[in-house]
């Protein structure tokens, strides 16, 4: 195949390139100059993010194991944006003394996981998918244990690596049966051979379980809270937005592409998972006091909503899911940004520490307020649109009861999102968090997030674009 067709994997190549550059830079910069790497990485990555918005021809590589189409490109852009924001938010944290030696590791690891995710998304066969998956998982374990002198961080790392290994084992076991029954690992070949015989169902369910682990759907979610709590905040943000998003996209694409023949099996399966995920996620989130853990469970609940879109199985479903993820990136990162800003400045991470935050840091708490409302799906912020369209997708399938359950869950979730609002605006505190100045990078990231939260909802053009490039089951 001619060389310029590598252009199809533009984003991946660019990312690899950045990783390399950083590696080299790491070697040739003096220890006291390391902070420069942060800027370098941020700038390079920003460029990459922008670059990926340029259109790409459709096509496949490596005999169909790598697929590129506008949708995958857009999904990658969504992830890029998320990662870029995360980078901006992690500047202060990286400048700390204890991380000084590990700056470039951080970037390289994150970028390599991102590469893995990109491959997952554009994968055309299960092998590519699996490699991407692992590439997207293993470095994260290292990242989770990044602050290796903190017990919690270490614990998070070990929990993540072991459980993910287990999950990938189970997933593989399922895939082995898919292969055995269909005789191929290529999506295009498998799709015709899929029927609802027990062995394939077995494979399907194990596959779903493995992906559910990544998206952290109940009951495969147990690692989530611990890892989120233990890992450094920015890693948590990365996990909860980017890695979850990538997994969701892949999951959706494969369900649509490969298992389109057996919707009558995986739709009820997802139905069950969705109900369980939303309910359990909410019930756990209600009780949390640690902000990170709280957001972990809230993100679990959100994952449950995503399933509503996936289940629809058509263009509408994909559109709503991608749209929701896009909004979710901005919203959730806004929340995490505030948390990390406060945590960097004061080391406080509990909801009760936020009491009367509005007095001292009105701007931060307003951003938090917006994020919370957007997560809860309150107009006029974008979250409302995202959620409502997901419900629409489910409604299109006639799952009205599911929609009812979902919306009631949304009401419950409103309860704990409002708890945060209450803490910041209503509750009085004896020693409130003092007024502090957030560094420029954090401001920039938060600004982007707020802009996103406000704009995406009203700008129907975005939605229209997504729906124009999205595809459903045949």
């Amino acid at each position, binding site marked *: 195949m001619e060389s310029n067709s590598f252009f199809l994997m533009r984003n991946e190549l660019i990312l690899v390139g950045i990783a390399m550059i950083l590696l080299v830079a790491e070697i040739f910069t003096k220890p006291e100059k390391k902070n420069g790497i942060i800027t370098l990485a941020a700038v390079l990555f920003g460029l990459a993010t922008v670059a990926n918005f340029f259109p790409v021809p459709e096509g496949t590589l490596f005999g169909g194991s790598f697929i590129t189409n506008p949708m995958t490109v857009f999904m990658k852009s969504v992830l890029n944006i998320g990662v870029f924001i995360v980078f901006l938010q992690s500047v202060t944290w990286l400048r700390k003394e204890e991380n000084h030696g590990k700056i470039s590791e951080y970037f390289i690891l994150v970028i390599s996981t991102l590469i893995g995710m990109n491959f997952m998304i554009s994968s055309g066969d299960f092998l590519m998918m699996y490699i991407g998956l692992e590439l997207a998982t293993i470095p994260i374990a290292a990242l989770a244990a990044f602050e290796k002198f903190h017990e919690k961080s270490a614990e998070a790392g070990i929990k993540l690596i072991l459980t993910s290994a287990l999950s990938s084992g189970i997933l593989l076991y399922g895939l082995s049966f898919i292969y055995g029954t269909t005789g191929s690992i290529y999506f295009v070949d498998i799709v015709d051979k899929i029927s609802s015989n027990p062995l394939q169902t077995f494979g399907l369910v194990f596959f779903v379980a493995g992906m559910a682990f990544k998206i952290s759907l109940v009951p495969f979610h147990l690692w989530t809270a611990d890892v989120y709590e233990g890992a450094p905040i920015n890693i948590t943000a990365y996990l909860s937005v980017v890695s979850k998003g990538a997994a969701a996209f892949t999951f959706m694409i494969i369900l649509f592409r490969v298992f389109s023949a057996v919707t009558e099996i995986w739709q009820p399966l997802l139905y069950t998972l969705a109900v369980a995920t939303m309910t359990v996620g909410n019930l756990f989130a209600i009780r949390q006091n640690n902000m990170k853990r709280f957001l972990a469970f809230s993100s679990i609940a959100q994952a449950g909503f995503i399933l509503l879109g996936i289940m629809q199985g058509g263009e509408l479903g994909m559109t709503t899911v991608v749209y929701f993820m896009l909004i979710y990136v901005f919203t959730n990162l806004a929340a995490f940004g505030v948390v990390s800003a406060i945590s960097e400045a004061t080391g406080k991470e509990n909801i009760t520490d936020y009491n009367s935050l509005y007095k001292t840091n009105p701007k931060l708490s307003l951003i938090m307020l917006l994020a919370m409302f957007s997560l809860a799906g309150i*107009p006029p912020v974008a979250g409302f649109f995202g959620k409502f369209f997901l419900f629409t997708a489910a*409604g299109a399938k006639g799952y009205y009861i599911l929609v009812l359950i979902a919306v009631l869950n949304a009401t419950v979730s409103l309860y704990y999102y409002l708890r945060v609002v209450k803490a910041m605006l209503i509750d009085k505190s004896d020693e409130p968090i003092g007024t502090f100045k957030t560094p420029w990078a954090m401001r920039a990231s938060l600004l982007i997030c707020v802009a996103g939260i406000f704009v995406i909802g009203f700008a129907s053009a975005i939605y229209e674009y997504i729906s124009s490039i999205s595809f459903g089951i045949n």
Partner: protein
Amino acid sequence: MNILNLFVIIPVLTVLGIMFVKDYKGARMTAAIGMSLQLVAALVMTLMYFAERKAGASGEFLFYTDITWFKTLNIHYTVGVDSIAVWMICLASIVVFAGIFASWEVQYLSREFYISLILLATGVFGFFISLDLFTMFLFYELAVIPMYLLIGIWGSGPKEYSAMKLTLMLMGGSALLVVGLLGLYFNSSAAGPVTFNLLELSKINFPMAMQRFFFPFLFVGFGILGALFPLHTWSPDGHSSAPTAVSMLHAGVLMKLGGYGCLRVAMFLLPEAANEMAWIFLILTTISIVYGAFGAIWQKDLKYINAYSSVSHCGLVLFALLMMNKTAINGAVLQMISHGLMTALFFALIGMIYGRTHTRNVPEMGGLMAVIPFLGVSYVIAGLASLGLPGLSGFIAEMTVFVGAFAHTDTFHRVITIIATMSIVITAVYILRVVGQLLLGPLREKEYLEFPDARWYERLSLVVLILPIAIIGIYPAFLSGTLADAIVPIVERLTAML
């Protein structure tokens, strides 16, 4: 440029304006100016509307504008008003205007206060003007959420609890609504693009099974906001904890969203199911009418008394709607407006009295009439309006409702109507009880003598509310005569299949 857009634009601009002022003086001034403009716009719009009607403008909704928003989902920004909406908008702008002045003294986080208040107003106005169910729902939720902050931050008593309860219950209501709306949306056309547009939906005859399934969702969903028994309990706590202006707005306007929605969406779009299930909800509303009134008798807290009487009066609104004839629905609309005005007046007065006595517990007060005659007299007027004294709006509304409700020939409707009429006596009981204990009788405390009577802004907000009450009461024709163009199509659709 469609005048209706003003009702969204003005509040938004006001909010932006408030963001850039320094102190509470600037904030309240900005808010006052904005809402005065709003009031003017509302009156102008009303005049224009009836001018066009007189000029022979046909079509259910005037000032109709339709802008495509989400093309693939066929979601539009569609606005238009009929006479009900027009009057509702007038009501809303009057109450908001009065509310701003009633909360003139708010200084703690005043900018935030006015911003959330006006956001709430935005939601209300948007709800009344929009004809696309999606935007309608958007504005509906927009109206509900600021309540949490307003009650939670500036409220009194167990404010966090009440605010949370109110928000969650109303959101639970909107949960039902989502299901109902989606049901309408996806059943709106077997082939071709589905739609949220009220007008197009109102042309469709939905299959009976679908109606049976979705009508309860829609009716109860809106009914919660209309304080439908037994889902009314957010109302007493919410109102009693809310700051003055918020109780005014909420009882005066927001609760009307419920009735309006029930009429405009639930009943209008799903007529057969409405006819079929009316009896269930009629029983419920009858209960809330009498039950609310009895509940009010026992209360000691002024706001609780009023909250329960609101339950009773709003129950009457739904009750009248479900009677499904021209007169009754006419009465329902009148009742919405009249109750909106007088309950706002009540809450304004309660706030002002509370500001002086620092208690809302009736037995702890007495003889206030002697020291604050203006407030006292206004309170008596409000009370008389609410017990249906001729010459004030309440009488007009209630009589229309009863006459309309009585036009049903079967015993069931007769009996519940008579039960409902009982409420006017019970109302008299608790109103006079309060007036007697609170205002009349010997002066209870010495320090009452220092109380100042109503200040100018207080007088303004009271007069703004009293005037329409009196005008409607003295010359009702100008209001009740103009609703036909909105009600006739609804009634025709409701009675088409009978």
